[in-house]
Every structure is written in structure tokens, then in C-alpha cells.
């Protein structure tokens, strides 16, 4: 089963939020999902401790360099989609998690700082592709986006597209409901309503469907 690695050395880019949205939406759509928490700050674990873990999801905590590859191997074969959440640092654990991925997702806010640091994840993927002599599908998802996009965001997106980077559509919009997942645990169906839940749910599902299409090899192969 496919392994999705969520990676960016930029802290606060929206990795853990993207991981929880993706995991809960895929599980809701019927997949078994194993979420591996590789962040010593334990964001995923905090989410899972906050409320009931939705059906078909398991969360593995405190996975480090010494056991990541072994853990991925185990769950790669047990029929669940594996999602790896990493700390926002440039660490060896990140490069190992990328080496095991069927898809790398780099969440990025549409700001110059986020893009500059986030791009380091893309450069690492390219380096590993060369070193390991295989392609590692990867994509960027813009996070915390608003209805009206800044010039900065548009510029960054255009420049990434020009370089052949696969950009996941829809982006993850800024929603109180997404932040609330960490306050209440569970998924967008179980948390108390925050703002317009319909918009949040549609956005989350759209994102998960776009990732699913890539896991089927249907969409978004970057123009390499």
C-alpha cells in the first residue's frame, strides 16, 4: 500500500494539519490508514489523544530514525495507506522518510519565506531521485489560503508550475475547523461546528480526492 510522506523543513507550514485532514478523509472514504508520528513534538499523537480516533485509523507515536523504515515496511504490507508526519526541520529522518514514499507532499503557505524554505524539500526529493535512481512522485499543496490570493502567492505558484512542480488542487483553505481538529480530536464530522463546516468538509474531501488520484497514478505526475 502506498506511503505518503508529508515533508517540509519549514515549521508551521501546515504539515500536521494536512496529515490529519488526509488521514481522516481517506479513512472516511473506506481506506485503512496508519499515521506515523515522527515529530518529537507529537502533533498527531496530541490529535489522537484529544478525542476518539475515527474508525480505520491507527496512530503510531514516537517513531524515530532507528525504527522508521522497519515500521513503514510492516504497514506497507498490512493493507493500510501510510501517512508520515515529520518535524519542521531539515533532518536525516526527513530524507529517510522521503526514500520510503510513494508520494511526497510539501505543504506551503503562499509566502516567500515558506516557499524559499519549503523548496528545500523539493530539492531533497530531486537529490534522492538521482541517488536512488528512481522517481519519487511529489507535490506541493498550498495551505492556509484565502479567497483572495496575494500577488506573492500567485507569483510563487506560477514559478513552481514553470519548474514543472505538481501542485495539488484544491489548496487547503484557512478554516477554523481545520485548526479545531487538534482541539477536539476526531474528524470534521465529529467536531463541534466551527464556521462553515460544509466549506471545510468539501475542501478536505477535495484535497483527499486529489491525493487519492495521485496514489492511483492518475493525476499530477510532474513534468520531469
Amino acid at each position, binding site marked *: 500500500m*502506498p506511503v505518503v510522506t508529508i515533508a517540509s523543513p519549514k515549521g508551521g507550514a501546515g504539515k500536521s494539519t494536512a496529515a490529519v485532514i488526509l488521514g481522516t478523509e481517506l479513512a472516511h472514504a473506506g481506506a485503512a490508514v496508519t499515521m506515523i508520528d515522527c515529530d518529537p513534538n507529537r502533533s498527531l499523537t496530541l490529535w489522537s489523544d484529544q478525542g476518539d480516533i475515527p474508525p480505520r485509523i491507527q496512530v503510531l507515536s514516537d517513531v524515530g530514525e532507528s525504527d522508521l523504515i522497519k515500521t*513503514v515496511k510492516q504497514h506497507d504490507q498490512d493493507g493500510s495507506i501510510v501517512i508520515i508526519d515529520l518535524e519542521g526541520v531539515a533532518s536525516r529522518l526527513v530524507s529517510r522518510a522521503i526514500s520510503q514514499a510513494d508520494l511526497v507532499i510539501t505543504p506551503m503557505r503562499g509566502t516567500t519565506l515558506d516557499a524559499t524554505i519549503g523548496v528545500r524539500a523539493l530539492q531533497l526529493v530531486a*537529490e534522492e531521485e538521482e541517488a536512488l535512481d528512481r522517481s519519487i512522485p511529489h507535490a506541493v499543496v498550498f495551505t492556509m489560503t484565502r479567497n483572495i490570493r496575494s500577488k506573492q502567492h500567485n507569483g510563487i505558484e506560477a514559478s513552481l508550475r514553470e519548474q514543472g512542480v505538481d501542485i495539488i488542487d484544491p489548496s487547503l483553505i484557512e478554516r477554523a475547523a481545520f485548526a479545531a481538529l487538534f482541539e477536539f480530536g476526531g474528524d470534521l464530522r465529529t467536531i463541534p461546528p466551527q464556521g462553515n463546516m460544509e466549506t471545510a468538509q468539501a475542501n478536505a474531501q477535495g484535497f483527499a480526492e486529489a491525493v487519492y488520484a495521485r496514489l492511483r497514478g492518475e493525476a499530477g505526475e510532474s513534468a520531469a
Partner: protein
Amino acid sequence: MSERKAFSIDVGGLKSRPKQSDARTIAKTDKAGEKHGFIDREPKAKRGRKPSPRTGQVHAKVLPQVQAQIAAEARRRGTQQGVIIEDAWELYCEQHGITDED
């Protein structure tokens, strides 16, 4: 939430490639990471005994019975002989009115 199409997953359609996890692959991966500053940041579990803060050394030849007594006392207290000397020095300082600033 009615007009949204249901999303359901057909697990059979998912693509997964065999993942290499041999030592050579890991070494290549680590090297690729290092090139871009993705380096080892695991907290290092300290192996073995912590280094002693007692790095100073006194050069003391003493009478054999004093040596034997200091050794016996250290063994009794389960400390190093240096600790006995530190204690003795503290008492000496008290007696002679020597303070830290001196």
C-alpha cells in the same frame, strides 16, 4: 451537505512500489540528505557513565596510614577519594576563615 459526491476508495487501484531498505540504500539516502543540510538531529542517548565534573587533580603524597584511612572512608561512603578531600578542604577553609573570594 447533499450535493457533494460521495468519495469512496477502491484499495485495489492504489499503486505502491517495493521499497528498498538495505543498508546501501539508506547510506545513499543519508548522503543525499546531507548534501542539502538534512542531517542527523536525533537526540543522542548518553551511553555509559556521565563524565565526572571532577577534572582537577591534586598531587598529594601522604603517609601510608592516611592514604589507607581516606581510601577506607571513601569506600564506606561509596564516593571517590576526591570527595573526601573536598570535604576536608571545606572544613579547613571554615577553620581558617578562607572564603571563595580569596
